[in-house]
């Protein structure tokens, strides 16, 4: 069917323009994930004036985690918008903006507060392209800090990724390093689809690494090989990558065993090829995530392996997740997968015959 051209709706005469050049930094000096994301936003806004930032306290306050620091001063109140206390308003109005032709990049203050906007995300953002037969779409990025480890209790610590990975129409991205955060966020903003971009707040400032100063996107849809190994495949993402690395280091040192760690990084679309290749190589697989174990994203990875790599398996597929409870306050470090728990399960898997 030939469809009528949608007219370039209107002219875009966006004001104000940036007031100054992007601050320079030394490429060799390692930066935090917060800095990397801030830089990605800065660069995206500089190169595409249709990029607009919206959220609570993102303006003068620079966001409660300071991720949007300096952006309103630089790009003005029209493009860095402090929103009223309604996530429905934030996401819903972003749909209208995207339909109009802008590219909204939303910050929701905590991933726990995606739920008041859940209907707009799942019913509207995810499905607008489909239901309109492709005549309309609402590419946008919804950023939210997620996960535990900062003593934020039940409503500042949740990991809601699986709510979104089961929603066709959304892409779901979770970086685990500053460089990935920058590159993946740039790709998300440049892309044509809505992206849920979850940021592991626990490692917002704890790990630093060198990040390129230029604006090079990292392709969405590809996992990252953290370390090669031969005896066991560990799939993880977000702040769990570091936890798995710690456990693997210990295992290497104490048992001389070589673990392959894969940072899934883009949860939708799933990089099945990397997952299956690794399992076919090592014959043993486990998944580590901090959301409640049951029906979490790890279930999908286990299911894919059970469906497509069963012949290679020399042991059960194991999941280490959070408990099937709401997120606790005092006992959060009991709840969260920690290196010792991961290590124990690694050993169980390796001992399996």
């Amino acid at each position, binding site marked *: *069917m030939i*469809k*009528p*051209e*949608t*007219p370039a*709706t*209107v*002219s*875009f*005469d*966006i*004001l104000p323009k940036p007031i100054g050049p992007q601050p320079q930094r030394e490429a060799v000096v390692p930066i935090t994930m917060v800095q990397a994301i801030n830089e990605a936003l800065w660069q995206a806004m500089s190169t595409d004036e249709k990029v*607009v930032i919206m959220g609570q306290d993102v303006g003068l306050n620079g966001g409660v985690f300071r991720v949007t620091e300096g952006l309103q001063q630089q790009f003005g109140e*029209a*493009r860095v*918008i402090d*929103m*009223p206390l*309604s996530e*429905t*308003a934030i996401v*819903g*109005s*972003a*749909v*209208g*903006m*995207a*339909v*109009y*032709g*802008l590219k909204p990049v939303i910050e929701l203050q905590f991933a726990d507060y995606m739920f008041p906007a859940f*209907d*707009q995300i799942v*019913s*509207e953002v995810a*499905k*607008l*392209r*489909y*239901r*309109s*037969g*492709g*005549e*309309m*779409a609402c*590419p946008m990025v919804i950023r939210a800090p997620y996960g535990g480890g900062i003593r934020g209790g039940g409503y500042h610590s949740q990991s809601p990724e699986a709510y979104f990975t089961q929603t*066709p129409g959304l*892409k779901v991205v979770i970086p685990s390093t500053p460089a990935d955060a920058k590159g993946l966020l740039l790709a998300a903003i440049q*892309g*044509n*689809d809505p992206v849920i971009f979850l940021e592991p707040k626990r490692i917002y400032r704890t790990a630093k690494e060198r990040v390129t100063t230029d604006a090079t996107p990292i392709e969405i*849809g590809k996992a990252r090989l953290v370390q090669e190994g031969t005896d066991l495949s560990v799939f993880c993402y977000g702040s769990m990558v570091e936890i798995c690395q710690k456990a693997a280091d210990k295992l290497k040192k104490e048992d001389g065993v070589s673990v392959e760690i894969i940072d899934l990084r883009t949860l*939708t*679309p*799933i990089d*099945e*090829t990397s997952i299956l290749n690794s399992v076919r190589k090592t014959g043993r697989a486990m998944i580590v995530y901090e959301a409640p174990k049951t029906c979490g994203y790890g279930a999908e990875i286990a299911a894919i392996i059970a469906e497509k790599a069963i012949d290679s398996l020399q042991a059960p597929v194991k999941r280490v997740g959070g408990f099937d409870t709401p997120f606790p306050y005092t006992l959060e470090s009991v709840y969260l997968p920690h290196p010792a728990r991961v290590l124990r399960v690694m050993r169980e898997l390796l001992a399996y015959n």
Partner: protein
Amino acid sequence: MTTTPNTNATPPESPASLTKHPLQVFDPQGAIPPLETIMKMHRFMVMVRLWDDRSLKLQRSGRIGFCVTSHGEEATQLGVAAALRDNDWLFPAYRQHGLAMWRGVSLLDLAAQLYGSADDRCEGKQMPCHWSFADKYFASYSSVIGTQIVHATGAAMAAQISGNPEQLAVTFFGDGSTSANDFHSALNLAGVRKAPALFVCVNNQWAISLPVEKQTASETIAIKGSAYGMPGVRVDGNDVLAVYQAVLAMADRARKGEGPALLELLTYRVHPHSSSDDPSRYRATEGVEAWKSFDPIQRLEAYLKYHHAMTDEALQAIWEAVEKEVYEATDEAYKVAPPAWETVFDDVYSELTPQLEEQKAELLQHETGLVLAHAGAFPL
């Protein structure tokens, strides 16, 4: 709390008691639009009426599974349509096809959507009457009550940001929808940003079986504007010129940067809620009859005749011509086959993901021979 089940036998507001001074402009001294425009409004109101009759018949005969109609609410569509500019964005609900017609969407396109055929511009992805026409600035409505309202706020903010503050976003929703989360979010945000948006509430006094006075205790819908720092205007929604006037005034204000407005167009849902609804379960017929005698098309025709703009015969000719158009389009569109199976995977994303590629390949490899169940009516 312990009222008997039948309190809502009388309609909450009968035409005789339009007491809260809604705006009315059936007065030739008023700044009504040129006769040409009025005639065009009339023609499209007739088209909506006949389209709805035809849809119901298509549904009853099993050609389509479902439809919603807007019998008696035609003035709320064409009065608004005529007062807007062609590039004002529309964020309608499911009873606003009159605006699509006014904007020039062909009846063939509308009919293809009813059938969900290969010609349907939604590719058969949405149920009947949930159309969208991006080239006409007519946005897609999901089904989820209220969500479109906040989209309109966003589009209006986008117009502002993009240096086009005179381009409006206009959204439609029912009395029931004012209870939804998104109504609140949308109006509050628009108020703060002084966004060029118009919020048009078609108060037809029912949300399926719930009468408006059980929907909200606010004295009117219009008064809710004050909660968001915007004017609320109550209009006789069966008076197409009043609707036109009110929209023009509020649109003018919004284009000048003076902010959004809430319009309450008071009308009545004469038909059942949808082709699946049976109002005899929950409302008496008196209200319906009363409002039928307050019909917006009849009122407009009486006006045209009184002012010697039209004769009975000329009007008759319009009805007949439009009916022919409607029948031809719905019959013609019926011949088109459904979309190809593999289109079910299109437009989830801008490109197929590996998972969708795999599922598509599996479907094409294994299941082309199957004969699957088809059609059947949506049971509610």
